[in-house]
């Protein structure tokens, strides 16, 4: 049964190497962003008159902001647009008559895309991060597990965005862009949440977005006490189960809708 998805996985990896230009350009764009971030934070620290902002010294802040660029690269996908195209063109039907689950096909494709990006994007970015910006090494490697959970939570939102195509003609591009902005603000990837007013942090703590950046980054930096790591992971697990169940329900409805429409 897994061999079916393995085929999709391999063919997608091969396909993704066609877009070398895109990877090359992405790495440069990330490099430019990091360059700007470095100068801005240097100016912010010079203007603050203190060595610590929100409990972060300058090197820690640079580690945090660099992680934000790297984790965002890990989370980013255009799968919702592929789903949109397949629903609009009716190509989705060709998957439904095959003995595969469409949500798993989509998931396999994003994982394959990410796997190929390890070499084309992630490693170049890590080289810049560790050797040029000199970010600190992770305090706890459990951050990888936490980032994995964050990835799955984010993927649920991506898939749900794609499924919106079933109910609205609305532009998925706009929904996707709005979603990434909301995620960047509430996940702590725009700025450390500790710098925000307390009421804002309280709201953020009630939303699933902190599971996508704040938690894995805090574990990386060691700003979550090791005794609290378990509860943080449990919180991520809670959001993952909740969102996956929701996605499952929405997908079942979408399937039904397809039968009514006759594909």
């Amino acid at each position, binding site marked *: 049964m897994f061999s079916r998805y393995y085929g999709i996985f391999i063919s997608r990896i091969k396909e993704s190497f066609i877009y070398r*230009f895109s990877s090359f350009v992405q790495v440069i*764009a990330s490099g430019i962003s990091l360059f700007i971030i470095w100068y801005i934070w240097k100016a912010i620290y010079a*203007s603050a008159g203190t060595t610590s902002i929100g409990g972060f010294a300058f090197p820690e802040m640079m580690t945090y902001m660099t992680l934000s660029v790297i984790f965002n690269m890990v989370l980013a996908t255009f799968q919702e647009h592929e789903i949109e195209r397949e629903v609009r063109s009716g190509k989705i039907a060709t998957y439904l008559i095959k003995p595969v689950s469409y949500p798993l096909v989509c998931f396999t494709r994003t994982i394959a895309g990410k796997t190929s990006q390890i070499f084309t994007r992630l490693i170049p970015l890590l080289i810049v991060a560790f050797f040029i910006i000199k970010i600190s090494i992770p305090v706890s490697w459990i951050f990888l597990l936490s980032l994995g959970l964050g990835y799955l939570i984010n993927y649920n939102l991506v898939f749900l965005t794609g499924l919106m195509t079933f109910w609205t003609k609305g532009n998925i591009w*706009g929904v996707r862009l*709005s979603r990434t*902005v909301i995620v960047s*603000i509430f996940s702590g990837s725009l700025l450390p949440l500790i710098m925000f007013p307390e009421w804002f942090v309280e709201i953020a703590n009630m939303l699933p977005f902190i599971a996508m950046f704040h938690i894995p980054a805090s574990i990386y930096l060691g700003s979550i006490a090791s005794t609290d790591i378990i509860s943080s992971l449990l919180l991520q697990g809670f959001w993952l189960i909740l969102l996956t169940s929701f996605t499952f329900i929405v997908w079942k409805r979408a399937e039904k809708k397809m039968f009514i429409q006759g594909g």
Partner: protein
Amino acid sequence: MRLLKLYLEYAKVHMKEILEYRLDAVIGFIAIAFTNLASLIFFWVIFANIPSLNGWTLGQVLFIFGTISTAFGISHAFVPGVSVWWVEDLVQNGGLDRMLLKPISILQHLLIYGGIDTDGFGDLVVGIAVLTVASNMIGISWTIFSLGLYAILLVSAALILISMHIIMSTLCFWVVKAHPVADIFFALTKFTEYPIDIFSPVTVFFISLIVPVAFIGYYPAQIFIGQGLWLNAAYLTPVVAIILFFIASRVWNFGLKNYTSTGS
């Protein structure tokens, strides 16, 4: 004159399209407005932690930011046709071949056929709102003359953006999927969201003269703020815009000469 008439014709068609897909237009507008929100929140939180950024107050930084957003808004709302995404699409589906048959140069056609794009109003509305708030915060007293000058600078900044879009679009003649290059473009425009004196002199040179993104926001804004590296640089904005547009149309024509249809 004929171009203007054609432009209005296209704009009319696009307005009908927008009315047909109202929800799409609203979502696009909100999405673009949202991207500005992230930057505004960034400034708001940062300035809650520091009194000023390298000697610039929140109001002054917001004025620079509002200038860029408004320039982006003008180019996106009124000249959406030259973007690397559209041109890429045109090359791929053969639309460009059809345009070659029209009695109008392709570049002119691209400049007008986008008509009006309501998504761009997301930048324009937020930009103007931020400018209003910011100029109150720093107490700029506007006169008819200074408003006129500012309008000219904004249009010039928009022309710089359009020229950059033309240069990026030219890549579509060689690379099938050229749109990722826009990521570099957007990364570069981030330089000008901040007072550029926080960057090293080499960087300032680069963003002023090599890729003149500093003329989109920083230079046009600083003359009204009355503080900055080189106040009179603001007056160069229209000159930079015209030179860049000239270069862009040359680059475009060079690319077009090398264009061979995809044949699809």
